[in-house]
């Protein structure tokens, strides 16, 4: 099926996620879609698969304009999407998941469905028992189930969102074989990824998105340098950087730290961080840096190695033990994890401070809040509920909640979604902390931010971690390549499950 997108436009509040995107994919093509986090790839694919509606623009399937209202609608039109996290129902059996979503009468044609399932599975040489339960499957197998399901529902165009994350090498080979088979049957494949190698190896053509704009297209054979440049922009001159503010005393020490979740393993990370040092954690979302950061906060149980903070072994302790020793973690999801909707700034400040006595001295609390509001340049009053603040003000409020002094500050995307002014302000506050001896580990998908503010950088790719790299020795291009999985030495630690 030919798929064509014309002038697709979508904004979320202040974010222009898709800017007049035009893309034509002929039937039987494997089309790659590259771009860094927040480039607008997922938005575009969600529009095509009916999860969200575009503000403007047209979708043409086989030359006919269609309006897609919902995912169910999309599959009626022959468009199916595989999400990064499989949207199946784990406590149900494989065959029931398979049948789910099928339009039909009251009765389920179990026998017929099972026959179809077995026939399709054989065609793609997938081997999943239809009677097993989905929660017993690996991510790769769940993906296979989803492919079979969509084909069975009549999908003629299939969208894959980061399908190679969290699956084994063998499963990847199987997946690619299946995709090539599908393409040879005349089906259209849209392959969304940030992994250069996968895109280069699989896709006959690739389109690159950056900041909501389709910046370029390329065909095989590709030059990696060209793709990286399109993804991350031209070499950007990085401003003058503060040198490491520390005194060289080791503050945080990680020894052979290993941590894993259901899709990733990060293994044997060793790192010594001195007072006042800033470590940037780079990588595409879900490459292991989030897991790593949370394990250093005591929020995720490690599976191996040791964490020392100020020479105290905190391995296996909870976040609150880390907190008592002067660690603090600020989540990226400000309103989901960082702040409590429905509570005022004063309530937050009082909550975050050490409690003295049984009763709250609200006058003192308000006074402290007013001081913090002034210190952190928050546009709001002590009585403002946090949800009424803008994103930048919420971020400043989160910083304002931190106690003094801190020895370790762990930040997830400290300036995501903020304008340049807020970003500079927040980093000036963070650098103040460094001068007081706090060491900082932060995740960012903004490479410029990583290079500008870190002393050293760890790059994550599918659970693999580089040795700490001096940020002075790095360029945007080099960093971009590492993030995309290029230029890794063979024997780095960690691997995908």
């Amino acid at each position, binding site marked *: 099926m030919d798929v064509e997108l014309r002038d697709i436009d979508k904004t979320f509040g202040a974010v222009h996620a898709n800017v007049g995107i035009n893309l034509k994919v002929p039937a039987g093509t494997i089309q790659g879609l590259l771009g860094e986090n927040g480039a607008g790839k997922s938005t575009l694919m969600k529009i095509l698969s009916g999860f969200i509606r575009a503000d403007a623009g047209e979708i043409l399937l086989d030359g006919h304009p269609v309006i897609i209202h919902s995912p169910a609608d999309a599959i009626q039109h022959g468009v199916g999407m595989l999400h990064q996290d499989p949207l199946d129902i784990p406590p149900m059996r494989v065959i029931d998941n398979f049948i789910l979503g099928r339009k039909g009468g009251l009765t389920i044609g179990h026998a017929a469905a099972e026959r179809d399932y077995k026939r399709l599975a054989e065609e793609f040489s997938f081997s999943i028992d239809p009677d097993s339960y989905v929660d017993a499957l690996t991510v790769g197998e769940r993906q296979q189930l989803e492919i079979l399901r969509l084909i069975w529902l009549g999908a003629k165009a299939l969208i894959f969102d980061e399908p190679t994350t969290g699956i084994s090498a063998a499963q990847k080979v199987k997946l690619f074989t299946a995709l090539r088979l599908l393409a040879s049957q005349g089906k259209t494949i849209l392959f969304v990824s940030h992994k250069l190698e996968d895109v280069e190896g699989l896709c006959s053509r690739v389109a690159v998105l950056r900041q909501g704009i389709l910046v370029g297209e390329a065909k095989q054979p590709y030059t990696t340098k060209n793709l990286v440049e399109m993804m991350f922009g031209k070499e950007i001159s990085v401003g003058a950087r503060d040198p490491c503010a520390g005194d060289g005393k080791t503050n945080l020490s990680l020894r052979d730290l290993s941590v894993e979740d259901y899709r990733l393993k990060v293994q044997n990370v060793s790192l010594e961080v001195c007072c006042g040092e800033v470590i940037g954690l780079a990588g595409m979302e879900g490459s292991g840096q989030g897991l790593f950061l949370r394990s250093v906060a005591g929020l995720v149980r490690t599976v191996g190695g040791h964490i020392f903070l100020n020479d105290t072994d905190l391995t296996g302790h909870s976040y609150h033990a880390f907190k008592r020793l002067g660690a603090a973690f600020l989540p990226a999801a400000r309103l*989901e*994890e*960082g702040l409590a909707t429905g*509570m005022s700034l004063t*309530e937050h400040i009082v909550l975050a401070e050490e409690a003295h*006595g049984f009763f*709250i001295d*609200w006058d003192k609390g308000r006074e402290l809040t007013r001081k913090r509001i002034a210190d952190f340049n928050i546009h709001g009053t002590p009585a403002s509920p946090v949800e009424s603040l803008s994103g930048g003000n919420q971020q400043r409020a989160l910083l304002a909640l931190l106690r003094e002094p801190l020895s370790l500050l762990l930040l997830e995307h400290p300036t995501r979604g903020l304008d340049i002014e807020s970003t500079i302000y927040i980093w000036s506050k963070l650098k103040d902390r460094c001068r007081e001896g706090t060491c900082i580990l932060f995740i960012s998908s903004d490479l410029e931010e990583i290079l500008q503010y870190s002393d050293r950088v760890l790059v994550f790719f599918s659970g693999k971690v580089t040795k700490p790299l001096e940020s002075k020795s790095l360029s945007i291009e080099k960093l971009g390549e590492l993030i995309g999985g290029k230029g890794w030495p063979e024997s780095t630690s960690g691997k995908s499950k």
Partner: protein
Amino acid sequence: MKKNSWINVGFQVGALVVALLITTLLLVAAGAPPLKAYASIISGAFGSSNNIENILITWSPLLLTTAGVLITFSAGLWNIGIEGQMTLGAIFATGVLRALQNTQLPPALIIILGILAGVIGGALWAALAGALKTFGGVNEIFGGLGLNFVSTALTIYLVFGPWKRPGVGSMSGTQPFDEKLWLPSLPHTELSLWALGISLLVIIAVYFMLRGTHLGLRLKAVGKNSKAAFLMGVPTWQYSMFAFLLCGAFAGLSGAIQVTSVYHRLLPNISNGYGFLGLLVAMLINYQALWAAPIAFFFAAVNIGSVQLQIQYKLDSSFAGVLQDLLVLLVLLGEGARQRFIKKG
């Protein structure tokens, strides 16, 4: 007053009017003259000093259960199990009174021990629901509901089994205690100023706890966003458990007071729906403890007043519940409508 406050008042009055309208329609449908029926509710509630005493007797347990659920609501928990916690309070109190009634201990001490046992019984039953929730992943609504059934079965077993009256067990409960084991009450009534005083103290304490203490603020944070609260250093599951325990303690106290001051024995259905009514009061006041006492009083008055409906118009006295439920539903509905209205406006 700001424009928004007027809108708020408008929606609340609107909800009240609609609730009365629907109730009126129901009265008409049931064949009762609506205006006269309302008049009889009012006279039934305030017509005699006896009626007012009955309101105050009802007010006391309702204040306690409302105080309890205000705490669990603060922590974001739906403690549906409060009925069972109240029942367990009554069972524990009865147990201690039975065990000690023939000893030489001073009666006042026995009463105090009985009430304390009730507090502990309620708290333990709530701890069970809390543990199911915290460690077993059982939603507190299901856990609480299940435990309510168990508590009812337990009461019936005791009343008809080990604690049955000499001779034969009956729905009218266990053998009443000797008058010396009654919580002192006003002459010729069951109205105990002790019970009322304790209940008022509890609701006032809860008001101040939620408003002005670190404890209350942390409970609120756990309820509003437990992840954020955890990151800010609040040990979240411990606070959830604490909320259950405290709520259960108040429910147990309320059950113990029913035994020691109102019925002087253990009855099947001793909780009498006061737990659920407390939930309704808390929802109606939008969890603002300040309004708990007057609204609980109003609900108690409707309960007592509706008894007249049964006598005069042969309407079931559960009509009180219909009026109360409608009121809560419509106020919640009005609140939802108000938020939509403000968003659009």
